[in-house]
């Protein structure tokens, strides 16, 4: 299944026919691969070239010429260093919360509900249900729920957790909440996929060997579901770190919660293409390094 395949071992190939060498392979691969070269590789190259551009001779806004203006990157670190740290912080916190919420949920569906396939399917549908309703409207729904006059703020003010002047929308809390909420199914589904395949006789064997509940979890269940945890973490962290909807001021954020994605988006639409491109390149490298390190450390044999 798609998730397992993202970062864990591929499907069992033992029964498949041996791979052949044939010109047919080139016919099958060429159209799709050339398409990706034109629409994925070329834009990345274009992004790198754009990130070194300098303003054109007539100084019109949005007019840039090819150059090697590396100072664009200097500008990125000087102006947006703090925003990158915030982006990383928000995404890591959202990923950790998503993991803490998802693991028991995935265990519930994949192991506890295993004897009841109908319930298993129904609960699984609930997990993916948020995908079927517009991402933006879902986020706006939270904005209304966390609004100053809304139920959550009123309740917290009555209880005394929040002062009468305090609010939630536009704070780090709502942004991280939104990130966690929006990407939680990406965490739950791959962990579920791992746990659903977990052979429970291993857990029983551990019990027979006098392993307590803690040892059974840490030394048997968790290691066996690690591929799911790895793909879930990646599938949550990557989109969270590039997201700019939750942190945008029209949604759950404010000028105090700006993330790297907001900077890329805002600069792009103000026609400051070179700096926007430089921020995008830095973001991509900043994400790829931990992702590659993480994948290498967790020992996934096959990426795709």
């Amino acid at each position, binding site marked *: 299944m798609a998730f397992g395949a993202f970062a864990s071992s591929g*499907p069992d190939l033992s*029964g498949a026919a041996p791979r052949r060498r044939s010109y047919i392979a080139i016919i*099958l691969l060429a159209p799709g691969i050339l398409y990706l070269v034109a629409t994925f590789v070329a834009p990345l190259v274009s992004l790198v070239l754009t990130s070194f551009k300098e303003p054109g001779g007539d100084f019109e806004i949005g007019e840039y010429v090819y150059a090697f203006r590396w100072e664009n990157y200097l500008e990125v670190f000087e102006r947006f260093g703090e925003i990158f740290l915030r982006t990383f912080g928000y995404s890591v916190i959202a990923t950790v919360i998503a993991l803490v919420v998802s693991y028991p949920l995935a265990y*519930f569906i994949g192991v506890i509900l295993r004897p009841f396939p109908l319930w298993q*399917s129904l609960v699984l549908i609930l997990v993916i249900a948020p995908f079927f*309703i517009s*991402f933006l409207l879902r986020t706006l729904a939270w904005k209304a729920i966390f609004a100053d006059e809304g139920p959550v703020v009123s309740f917290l003010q009555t209880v005394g957790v929040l002062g009468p002047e305090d609010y939630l929308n536009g704070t780090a809390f709502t942004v991280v909440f939104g990130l966690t909420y929006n990407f939680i199914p990406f965490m739950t589904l791959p962990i579920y996929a791992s746990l659903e395949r977990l052979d429970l006789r291993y857990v029983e064997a551990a019990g027979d060997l006098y392993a307590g509940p803690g040892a059974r979890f840490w030394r048997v269940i968790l290691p066996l579901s690690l591929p799911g945890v790895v793909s879930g973490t990646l599938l949550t962290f990557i989109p969270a770190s590039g997201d700019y909807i939750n942190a945008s001021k029209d949604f759950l954020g404010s000028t105090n919660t700006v993330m790297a*994605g907001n900077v*890329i988006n805002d600069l792009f639409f103000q026609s400051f293409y070179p700096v926007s491109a430089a921020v995008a390149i830095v973001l991509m490298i900043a994400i790829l390094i931990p992702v590659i390190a993480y994948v290498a450390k967790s020992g996934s044999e096959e990426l795709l």
Partner: protein
Amino acid sequence: MSSTQEAAALATAETAPRPRRRGRERAGRGGAGSWIIGVYSLLALAIMMIPIVYTIVFSFNDARRTNIVWRSFTFDNWLSVCDDPRVCEAFGNSIVVGVVATIAATVLGTMIAIAIVRYTFRMRTLITVLLFLPMATPEVVLGSGLGSQFVNMGVERGLWTIIVAHIMFCISFVVVTVRARVASLDPALEEAGRDLYASPAQVFWRVTLPLLMPGILAAALLCFALSFDDFIITNFVSGNAETFPKFVYVAASRGIPPQSNVIASAVFVFAIVLVIVAQVSAGFRRRRIARAG
């Protein structure tokens, strides 16, 4: 996608055969731990349902200008969906983009999936990495990259550039989904076709392709769901064209008309019914196979 990556994972789960479990297992052995996990899970699910319920409920709100405060119950929004023609136009654009992008990406991705499982070729690692990278790159980078390429080339952005972008991000997901199905295909079935004097083309169209169909359909559904809900990439490549998510984004700063809740709710109900029907029929099929075998 922003949101949506792998929406159809559920459908996908049906395409790869489940591992056969040897012997009997004793699962879900009651116990206090199971109860705590169950209650915790149901609570988490309940919270996850809140925005869905909110969106559907507010599609029935008798809102005047802004749909934030609850006024009174009405069916008017459902009966006058296209009163704000922009909502319906944006919805129509989303459908067109989704259908075209899905067809193109599914064809391209399925071809790659077959090649990867069945054939050896040069630069295999490089191609694998090329297929993996779009899934590991944040959408804002994909979007601003393609956007800046269109700007550099002086291309007028519109519906077709949205389609170009959506095909790009769908291909990898199609490959991953269909690949599992190709790998689990029993080669004996195709051999049987050849033994019965079927030409290679006949074997492909009458044996291979029908057997791959569940995987291909799941991939197509996934791609359509990703395309339909994508905002982040679309925003960079759309120019003046509006898809449904872009309409919501633009409207967010001045108030969302309740008609957009109507469209989102209708799509939600349609998708959920589709998934439930697929699940139930798959369940029946499994039971039938289990009984037969």
